[in-house]
């Protein structure tokens, strides 16, 4: 049996590409979208050429077989997220497409500097609005938009955080248009998730696609846990010799629990729930087998609302009573800081280019997508007039919920959305429908173009470091633009070339 299997594998890999099985990219047509692998109109890149040649050598049956192996592997490893709908909770894997997304060295340089610039601006903005509020006084950002924002937290006023860092972990959603230009779609400055998939996808590639990867200079992603831990140690209260970091999770039923496990393990720190922590004399302790042990930095994967029943929702059973006061007294550090939601609000997003210029006196390195803020009468009128061409998003939602994609909506859907928009314009922004870039993706009918985006992860303590890679999400259904995992999206490994 073993011998036969070996012979077959050899036969497959030695088969030269013939007319009817000329590898994966035969018949592949990006349909006028920018393709991340073919790069029509760009100067050739040796890494990409090598990758294309290897993909051309790979029969589709082999790729399919490996895809089946990969899927089983993910399920057995329990690399899953939980989907809640109605009364059921199902463990699902994030579908993984084996064909990687590639970012060249100059492109990465552009993204990295752009993300670092953006994180700096976000932190300066947060510091300002929770202190002097200069940007509001100068009329650059409307006062009401900030102070009346659901993400604005009064408790943070006048409170200093180490190094002025509020957003310790930032996930910046970036897309590419048909010309290949990178644009920021949104900033995730609260508790962005997905980094575990970046690392797990790489491990999966190394298991099932190492022959395609070998010799290509792909930058590693294993450093994330170390870098994150270092940043969390940096922000710990001063004078603590060996600060104790913990990861605070809502628990095993949270949809992102796998990621919490992953991060705790990568950092080598305890994974705790609110009930494991207790505040005494404004200091935070964890309940261990040896009694109470001090905690110095908390990486919380819990929303602001649930963090501390004394400070926020009194009914929260997930949080830690007295935590915010302990933090305000400087006895513990919390990442991300409370009140960062105001910075990743979709309406505030529209002002990001102006925010960057205001604080840094620099032009934004990464562009924004043109955004109409429906609370402004002109923008609302424009949006209502062009509803069938636009993407309209509620400002406070995440996860791709409640979005209208005009060109894909029926007359009835447009009408319903129109009335919703008129009823509560301040809750919406609109953007042009983007021709998102595509990447070859394995589908039931062969390799086909599918739209993708990118979420790089930036870690900030004293300084900002960006993981060379990121979560590439792919809209697996033909034509669809929504890449969210909760909406049928999958992911790809992201190869940043050295």
């Amino acid at each position: 049996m073993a011998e036969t299997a070996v012979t077959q594998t050899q036969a497959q890999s030695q088969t030269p590409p013939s007319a009817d099985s000329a590898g994966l990219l035969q018949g592949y047509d990006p349909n006028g979208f920018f393709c991340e692998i073919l790069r029509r109109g760009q100067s050739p890149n040796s890494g990409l050429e090598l990758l294309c040649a290897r993909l051309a050598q790979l029969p589709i049956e082999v790729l399919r077989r490996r895809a089946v192996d990969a899927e089983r592997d993910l399920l057995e490893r329990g690399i899953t997220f939980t989907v809640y709908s109605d009364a059921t909770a199902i463990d699902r894997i994030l579908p993984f497409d084996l064909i990687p997304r590639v970012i060249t060295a100059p492109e990465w340089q552009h993204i990295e500097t752009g993300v670092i610039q953006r994180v700096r601006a976000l932190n300066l903005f947060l510091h300002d609005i929770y202190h002097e509020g200069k940007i509001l006084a100068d009329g650059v950002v409307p006062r009401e938009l900030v102070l009346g924002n659901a993400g604005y937290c009064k408790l943070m006023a006048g409170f200093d955080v180490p190094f002025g860092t509020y957003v310790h972990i930032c996930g910046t959603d970036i897309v590419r248009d048909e010309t290949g230009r990178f644009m920021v779609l949104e900033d995730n400055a609260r508790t962005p998730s997905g980094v575990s998939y970046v690392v797990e996808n790489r491990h999966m590639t190394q298991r099932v696609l190492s022959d395609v990867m070998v010799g290509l200079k792909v930058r590693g992603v294993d450093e994330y846990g170390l870098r994150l831990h270092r940043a969390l140690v940096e922000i710990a209260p001063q004078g603590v010799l060996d600060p104790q970091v913990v990861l605070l999770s809502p628990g095993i039923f949270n949809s992102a629990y796998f990621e919490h496990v992953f991060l705790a393990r990568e950092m080598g720190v305890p994974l705790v729930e609110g009930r494991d922590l207790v505040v005494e004399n404004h200091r935070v302790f964890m309940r261990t087998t040896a009694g109470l042990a001090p905690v110095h930095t908390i990486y919380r994967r819990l929303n602001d609302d649930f963090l501390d029943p004394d400070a926020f929702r009194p009914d929260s059973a997930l949080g830690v009573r007295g935590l915010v006061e302990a933090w305000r007294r400087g006895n513990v550090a919390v990442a991300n800081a409370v009140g960062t939601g105001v910075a990743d609000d979709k309406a505030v997003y529209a002002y990001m280019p102006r925010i960057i210029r205001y604080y840094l006196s620099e032009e934004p390195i990464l562009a924004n997508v043109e955004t109409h803020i429906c609370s402004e009468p002109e923008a609302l009128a424009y949006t209502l007039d062009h509803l069938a061409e636009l993407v309209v998003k509620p400002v406070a939602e995440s996860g791709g919920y409640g979005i209208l994609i005009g060109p894909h909506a029926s007359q009835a859907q447009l009408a319903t959305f129109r009335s919703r928009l008129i009823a509560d314009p301040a809750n919406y922004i609109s953007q042009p429908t983007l021709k998102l870039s595509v990447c070859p993706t394995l589908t039931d009918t062969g390799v086909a173009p599918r739209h993708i985006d990118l979420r790089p992860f930036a870690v900030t303590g004293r300084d900002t470091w960006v993981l060379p890679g990121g979560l590439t999400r792919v809209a697996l259904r033909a034509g669809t633009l929504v890449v969210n995992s909760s909406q049928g999206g999958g992911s790809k490994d992201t190869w940043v070339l050295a």
Partner: protein
Amino acid sequence: MSETAAMATPMHLIARHAASAVWLARYIERIDNLARLLDVTKTHSHDDGDWLPILRINGDITDFFERYAEVTHDNVARFYLVDADSPNSVQAAINAAKENARTLRALISTEMWLQINVFHSRIRALTDADLAPDRMSALCAMLKEGAQAHVGISEGTFYRDQCWHFTMIGRYLERADQTTRLLDTQFSTLATHSGTDPDVDAGKWHALVRAAGGYHAYRREHPHGYRPAEVADFLLANTAFPRAVSLNLSQIEWHLTQLRARYHLRGCGRALERLDDLGSVLTRDAVATLVPRGLSTFLDKVQREIAALHDDVIVGLCGG
């Protein structure tokens, strides 16, 4: 040298995680024990009445009769193997084991998690069709293998810090508990009726020792046949048989001592004291004296003490 390092900066273990470690091991061990018991009963049963003792061992008589009218092979097998609502079924045990493993996922090895996850899917997929008498042995073998694979993978991959000690304590607690239960239900009937029909008796003693997984070892120790005192001694006071109560208690003692010495866990005191008391009661001499009068009262006490020992560990070390 690594021991010195551990002494210098002992890694903390969240109390709730320690409790999960104890429970994880107990549930996996429970699956192993249940599979053994079902397999032996199936092999040695002559009529449906032979299935009653299993229900008694697990304290399930009431639960069982709430859902089933009769004690039959089919009903008992369904109750223990596919019924997720029966609290002592393998379904309930693997669900609980997986939930605890999920809680501990950042602490146990990837291989341990993977195996539990796959084992869980396999058990969840069982249907009535798997319970047919000619398939029962294969099913029990699968369950035993799954539980043993867990033990083996833990042995080879689990970092031996605090969490490992708690897992081991859980495993030994469950073994000690299961063995006393097994003895308690089988021994008194067998010992009193001994001598009326030597062939039937030998078969039943044989089944008892086999259910504890000790047949060959017992044979080696006692090649001449079954004597009640020797069986009781073997299962209770032997210090080499993996499922003997004494052996398991001394293993627990070792782990508690380690936890106290290496991690300075002061909460070990109660449990260690109780083990001390139990050790002085559970001697070969004591067992030999007790057998002629009947073990029942004694086994009740030992069982209660094992349950109390579990509580000592949970209350003293795992935050209640």
